[in-house]
């Protein structure tokens, strides 16, 4: 075990070179310990190698003549990045989706062309202090306003740990952690809505992520959160785990592979277990804006220890101690900066049991980096054999300083 600790220390030493001003690291460490003793404190483990006052923004080489009265823009400089992402849709459905195919994303009453305001997401993001940053996303919709996410992220914990704490989307699967305005398709796959959560599966808690010291990207997440699964109104405490890895496949492709698991306490000895696997392959020549992205996820949910009466509240209807599964595969071809096309197949547990299948086609027009217009046409086939077309015309815009999204 001691080996492990020693090796971890070696691996995590973030600052192997760079003795400052002739002092050896040992001398520096000794002095640090002496000072810590004098102050009656432990040496600070965080933010190594960051001398006080070092800003990384050296002043230009020319002499600074100073400025009368200081900067009038100081308040502006300290403002967080503020952004708004708005989305609205025109929906048409042949089936009575509300009764037959429950979901959260925009849909219309049967045979009605329905305008829908989907959401306005307000993002407020900034670095808090030298140790953490904060990201806040507020969602405004016809139902009201809610804090979608609001969490702190550590910037420099030792041993390549990173902790997020606050209200956050659970680190389960690929799409669940993304905000809807980064989805390629207009709506969430039915399987994720029914087996994970009608909105993104998320809630208060913390997520500890460790970046493994491998030459490729391998990140292990362990989370403890209060989550509202499926269409439930109340939350349950849950443990979540995820391993996400990315591999470069040649010059032009990146492959992402993830496995996730979650266990939620349903009370009175009952449990809800979730297991998921996801794959993502992006093929893009470095000198081109065009790319092909293939993506798929499978999610299985098992309920155990529920009584028949408790299971009645579940939607879709479930066997009190059964396992349901679903998933999707999709391909998106970004033809140019302006156009993208996609196809998706989904399988989800139907509202009345049995598998529901849906296929969708997508066309996207992006006049600029800051807005897109999408047309999604789907064909939904319910377990009983009922089927119907659905269409969504969706517009989305983004204004302000919105942070870049992870891959």
């Amino acid at each position, binding site marked *: *075990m001691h*080996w*492990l600790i*020693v*090796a*971890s220390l*070696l*691996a995590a*030493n*973030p*600052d*192997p*070179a*760079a*003795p*400052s*001003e*002739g002092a050896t690291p040992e001398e520096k460490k000794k002095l640090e310990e002496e000072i810590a003793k004098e102050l009656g404190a432990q040496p600070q483990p*965080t*933010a190594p*190698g*960051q*001398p006080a006052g*070092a*800003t*990384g*923004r*050296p002043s*230009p*080489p020319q002499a600074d003549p100073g400025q009368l009265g200081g900067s009038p823009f100081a308040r502006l400089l300290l403002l967080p990045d503020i952004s708004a992402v708005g989305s609205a849709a025109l929906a048409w459905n042949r089936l009575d989706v509300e009764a037959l195919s429950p979901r959260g994303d925009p849909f219309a009453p049967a045979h009605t062309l329905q305008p829908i305001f989907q959401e306005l997401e307000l993002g407020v993001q900034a*670095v808090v202090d*030298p140790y953490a*940053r904060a990201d806040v996303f507020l969602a405004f919709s016809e139902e009201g306003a809610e804090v979608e996410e609001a969490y702190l*992220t550590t*910037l*420099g914990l030792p041993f*390549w740990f990173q902790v997020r704490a606050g209200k956050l989307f659970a680190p389960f699967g690929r799409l669940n952690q993304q905000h809807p305005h980064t989805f390629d398709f207009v709506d969430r796959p039915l399987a994720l809505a029914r087996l994970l959560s009608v909105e993104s599966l998320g809630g208060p808690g913390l997520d500890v992520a460790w*970046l493994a*010291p*491998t*030459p490729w*990207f391998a*990140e292990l997440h362990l989370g403890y959160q209060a989550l509202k699964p499926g269409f439930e109104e109340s939350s349950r405490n849950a443990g979540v785990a995820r391993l996400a890895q*990315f*591999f*470069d496949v040649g010059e032009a492709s*990146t492959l*992402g592979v993830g496995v996730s698991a979650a266990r939620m306490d349903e009370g009175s000895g009952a449990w809800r277990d979730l297991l998921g696997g996801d794959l993502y392959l*992006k093929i893009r020549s*470095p*000198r081109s*804006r065009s790319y092909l992205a293939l993506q798929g996820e499978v999610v299985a949910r098992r309920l155990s220890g529920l009584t028949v009466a408790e299971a009645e509240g579940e939607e879709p209807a479930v066997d009190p101690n059964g396992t349901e599964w679903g998933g999707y595969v999709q391909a998106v071809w970004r033809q140019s*900066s*302006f156009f993208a096309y996609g196809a998706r197949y989904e399988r989800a547990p139907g509202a009345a049991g049995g598998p529901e299948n849906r296929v969708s086609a997508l066309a996207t027009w992006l006049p600029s*980096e800051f807005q897109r217009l999408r047309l999604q046409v789907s064909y939904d086939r319910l377990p009983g054999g009922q089927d119907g077309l659905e269409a969504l015309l969706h517009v989305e815009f983004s204004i302000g300083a919105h*942070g*870049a*999204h*992870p*891959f």
Partner: protein
Amino acid sequence: MKTHIIALCLIAFAPSSSSAALKVVTTTEGLASLAREVGGDKVEVASLSRGTQDPHFVEANPNLAVKLRQADLLVDVGLDLEVGWLAPLVNQSRNPNIQPTGSRRLVASNFVRVRDVPTGPVDRSMGDLHAAGNPHFISDPRAAEAVADGMAAKLAQIDPGNKPYYEQRVVDFKRRLGDDLVRWKTVLEPLRGRKIVARHQTMSYFLAWTGLVAAGFLEPKPGITPPPSHLAEIVRIVQAQGVKAILVENYYDTRSADVVARHTGAKVVLIPGDVGGVPQADSYEHYIDALVKLISDAVR
């Protein structure tokens, strides 16, 4: 047994504290070439993007965060050039020192006299413009000198034992560049005032240095694809002013440039956007050599 195996794996991936070379990671190949000039064999340099890539649209591939994890220094261009991809990588890297204000972060544009800084109100109706100013300074050797000076000072601060080495390397680099500047000037001086059309405002610094003049831009506004009406206007300008060359970085689509060329007889010149943009541009000097040759041949 298990713990022994894990420990051995960790040791295998541990940074060897005996290897003296500082790990310098840059966002572009141009900055990487300058870091190599200044750092010599005391640094190990890696670039997050390729010279053949549009630096505005690099993928935020998490494997790049792995490169940043143990970086002793991150050098970025700044001025929001990398705004679409660098922040998530820095965040994923867990390296506290390369955060935007960290002690191991060097923003190259801090050493450059920045051009095209908007002086009036700015909004996105003006296109996807760089609100802090034009970040495409790598094509001006005078800017490269300033950045090299900044890098030498930073490397000397991080690695004071090799301060004289870095100082000597930057002096040598600037002396060679000084000789090159004389050579480039003899080629460029007679061409001063000649007009070109460029695709994007990537050439501002090169034009200011060489005295060539942009008669127009294929993009009506930064990042906005030209509508036919704008291209018709460019065709008129090219004909009226006798423009001979349309400069397009080789990572851009050439359809708009080809249309203008077809209607005017001007030549589309595919230029490297950075060091590494064409095979022969394998160092900073060779990159400027390639630019000067391609462009001077076309406008002569």
